[in-house]
């Protein structure tokens, strides 16, 4: 079987993945910080290679509101945004998740105001961890494309019925090019059956009231059901990734990937593209005989509590790289990891490495320093628990 490969950027890869998923409607607002993903999709629709309605709406809030309408009648919806655009659509996010509408969205992780710029960090998506959306973070353009296909399959799974946000690092993925393997449409069609959501979509035959109000006699139970189904989606995330691996030859290890974790004494935890840089450093340190490991967190909601505790058994110190700051506390992923690790009998020591804010590079050297600091921390040296990477002045 001939495999088609294209040299494309992360935005293109997402657009290719979305085209293969055959959405019925794409709604998007084209302004900075939007990406060219939606431009490509507009071209696909125009040339006829994607049979979909393309709706050019007047804001990001409208883009998602439109996707909510599309999904409400049982059609497949796609939208994409970034940074302030995501924050502007924030009000609509819990409407989509509360109504259990299987919308898929790409979010290019970019810095937020102010001071604003268009470079990448993960502050935007971290704001919305509590929005009820499943959140993936991908490492490269290939994974970005593959996750678009997996995201629809997951979102539309009967037991899940939850919108999915696929996060791709701004600039590092949206503006760099790599070889991406494009799967055959027929295989994707086998993997991703037509959308079916009889319980929560409406039609003329089955008129429904959507986004109903629920008083204090039922509201809590509605929210609990949503929460439990999100927790249970972990099983489907794993199963769908395995099935994808069998069919397309690329398996991403479900919720998280542990690299060199079997005998690791210390480990770093990463999300998104910084994983790739850390892989390179890891190889070098392993060659030097250092017992270091790496965990790539692929999904932050649901959070892989048990899997993380399992993979960190025997590890003595863990560092979490956060491309965000929760002002007045620490990195958001760090907070989440610490809570998960507190379930362990012998909880490792933990450190936070905050870096990459506003698109600042996290270099191989920075990551090597992080591993060194973890070793020093382990040997009992007094080091601040929260570290800042690649800072350009005293603080």
């Amino acid at each position: 079987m001939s495999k088609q490969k294209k040299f494309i950027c992360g935005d293109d890869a997402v657009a290719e993945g979305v085209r293969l998923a055959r959405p019925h409607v794409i709604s998007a607002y084209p302004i900075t910080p939007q990406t060219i993903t939606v431009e490509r999709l507009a071209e696909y629709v125009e040339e006829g290679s994607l049979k979909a309605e393309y709706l050019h709406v007047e804001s990001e809030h409208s883009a998602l509101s439109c996707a909510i309408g599309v999904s409400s009648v049982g059609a497949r919806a796609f939208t994409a945004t970034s940074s302030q655009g995501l924050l502007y659509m924030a009000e609509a996010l819990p409407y989509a998740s509360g109504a259990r509408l299987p919308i898929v969205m790409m979010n290019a992780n970019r810095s937020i105001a102010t001071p604003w710029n268009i470079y990448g960090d993960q502050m935007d998506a971290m704001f919305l961890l509590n929005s009820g959306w499943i959140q993936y973070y991908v490492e490269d353009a290939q994974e970005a494309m593959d996750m678009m296909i997996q995201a629809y399959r997951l979102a539309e799974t009967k037991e899940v019925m939850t919108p999915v946000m696929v996060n791709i690092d701004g600039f590092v993925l949206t503006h760099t090019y790599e070889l991406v393997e494009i799967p055959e449409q027929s295989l994707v069609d086998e993997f991703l059956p037509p959308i079916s959501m009889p319980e929560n979509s409406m039609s003329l035959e089955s008129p429904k009231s959507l986004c109903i109000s629920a008083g204090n006699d039922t509201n809590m139970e509605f929210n609990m059901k949503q929460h439990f189904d999100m927790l249970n989606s972990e099983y489907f995330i794993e199963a769908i990734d395995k099935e994808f691996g069998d069919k397309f030859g690329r398996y991403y290890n479900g919720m998280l990937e542990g690299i060199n974790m079997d005998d690791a004494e210390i480990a770093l935890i990463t999300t998104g593209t910084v994983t790739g840089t850390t892989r390179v450093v890891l190889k070098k340190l392993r060659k030097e005989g250092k017992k270091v490991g790496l965990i790539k967190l692929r999904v932050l909601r649901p959070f892989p509590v048990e899997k993380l505790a399992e993979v960190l058994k025997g590890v003595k110190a863990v560092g979490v790289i956060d491309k965000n700051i929760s002002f007045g506390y620490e990195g958001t992923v760090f907070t989440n990891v610490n809570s998960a690790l507190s379930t362990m009998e012998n909880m490792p020591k933990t450190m936070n490495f905050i870096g990459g804010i506003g698109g600042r590079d996290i270099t191989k050297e920075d990551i090597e320093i992080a591993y060194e600091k973890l070793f020093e921390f382990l040997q009992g040296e007094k080091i601040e628990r929260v570290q800042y990477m690649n800072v350009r002045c005293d603080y």
Partner: protein
Amino acid sequence: MDRPKVKGWSYPKSIDQFPMGSTCKSDHLTSINAGWRTVKPVIDQEVCINCLKCFLVCPDGAIDKSSKELEIDYDFCKGCGICAFECPVNAIKMIEEVK
């Protein structure tokens, strides 16, 4: 009066039995809503000229015109008094409710 009727909804025994999302069949009223009313409008049918002004201005759609005479749906009337205020012939009186 042929207004939508409140349909019974038995509270689910477990969370699984809750609807998938905030969605339900259309027209599915699960409860009446008139609890905060202190005064209620009463139409004097002898005086009423059937001009339908009250029907138009009622913010809760609680006035029914499906029968020969206008009727007020006290299951949903909140007692705001707009109908009485707007009535051109003073056919509607607001009467204090004593429970």
